[in-house]
């Protein structure tokens, strides 16, 4: 009986195997997360329910035709001017009930940010790219107003407030911050209606 010790397994190729796996995971890794514009679709409406009557002056009409042309309140407009036009409309404060608005108080434009509605209509031939650009500008208009309001009220922009709320390490009072965020959202509610 020859007494043999079990031969030691050669671990020299371990590194090679590990490298192989490493390279595989390196190649398949996608670390970035997706981002985009969040929207909420309206639920299917009842046929019988009468839509509420809204004054014409409280509606900001945005039309996009099949040739990607933009018609805002019956006037042709470039996409780059849309943001400012939307801000002026939302911030108008026509009936004086809005204490925090800096608009022109034009009686022919919106009464109150709470009542102001942006109506977006597009055609089937409109390209997605243009549609997203318009959506982006309209969301930007709301964000500009909310940022401005948050800055004057709480000393930081709305975006910063939301970032702080999501930040686990933020030292401040979160319930109070949440209330403030809700308050700003109430003051400039996003009322963006899409014609289906």
């Amino acid at each position, binding site marked *: 009986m020859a007494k043999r010790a079990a031969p030691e397994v050669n671990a020299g190729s371990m590194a090679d195997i590990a490298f192989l796996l*490493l390279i595989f995971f390196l190649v398949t*890794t996608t670390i970035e*997360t*997706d*981002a985009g514009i969040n929207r*909420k*679709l309206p639920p299917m409406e009842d046929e019988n329910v009468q839509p509420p009557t809204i004054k014409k002056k409280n509606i900001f009409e945005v039309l996009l035709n099949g040739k990607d042309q933009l018609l805002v309140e019956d006037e042709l407009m470039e996409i780059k001017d849309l943001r400012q036009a939307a801000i002026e409309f939302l911030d108008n404060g026509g009936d004086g009930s809005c204490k925090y608005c800096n608009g022109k108080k034009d009686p022919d434009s919106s009464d109150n940010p709470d009542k102001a509605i942006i109506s977006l209509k597009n055609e089937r031939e409109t390209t997605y*790219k243009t549609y*997203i*650009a318009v959506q982006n500008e309209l969301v930007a208009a709301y964000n500009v107003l909310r940022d401005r309001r948050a800055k004057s009220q709480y000393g930081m922009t709305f975006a910063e407030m939301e970032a702080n709320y999501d930040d686990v390490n933020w030292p401040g009072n979160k319930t109070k911050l949440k209330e403030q965020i809700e308050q700003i959202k109430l003051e400039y509610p996003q009322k963006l209606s899409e014609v289906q």
Partner: protein
Amino acid sequence: MAKFNKKKSGDMPAISTASLPDIVFMLLFFFMVATVMRQNTLMVENNLPFADQIEKLDKKDLVMYIYAGKPSENYTKQFGTAAKIQLNDKFADVSEIAAFIAAERASKREELVPFLSTALKVDQDANMGLIMDIKKELRKVNALKINYTTKKGSVTGE
């Protein structure tokens, strides 16, 4: 003297590579944890539009993806060049969206279903007709939270 000579005679000792596997394994584990495998092979062109007012789409397990766009080169012979919808790994018709949403909902835990959202990954050259159809289907099945997935950048593109 012999004692001292011995010390000088040796060359630089070879660096031990015994810990190399450990280092590599460490890297390996990092990438294994950080990896998100692509669930779907894309069969459509997916050149997303640009936007800058974007919000991050976290909680990946609570997102349903709907792709749309022109069929990519390998498929144009078979499917033509009109924009199509892709669900999971195959082309689908607008009417199949309802079934797709139902299947996705069934695969998630019940208490998570209300938090599901739908990410629309649509090629920037697609036209709105297709998207209006998708949105109508989503409204029918009450999947109202949507996200137009975009790339970060100025709206004009470049």
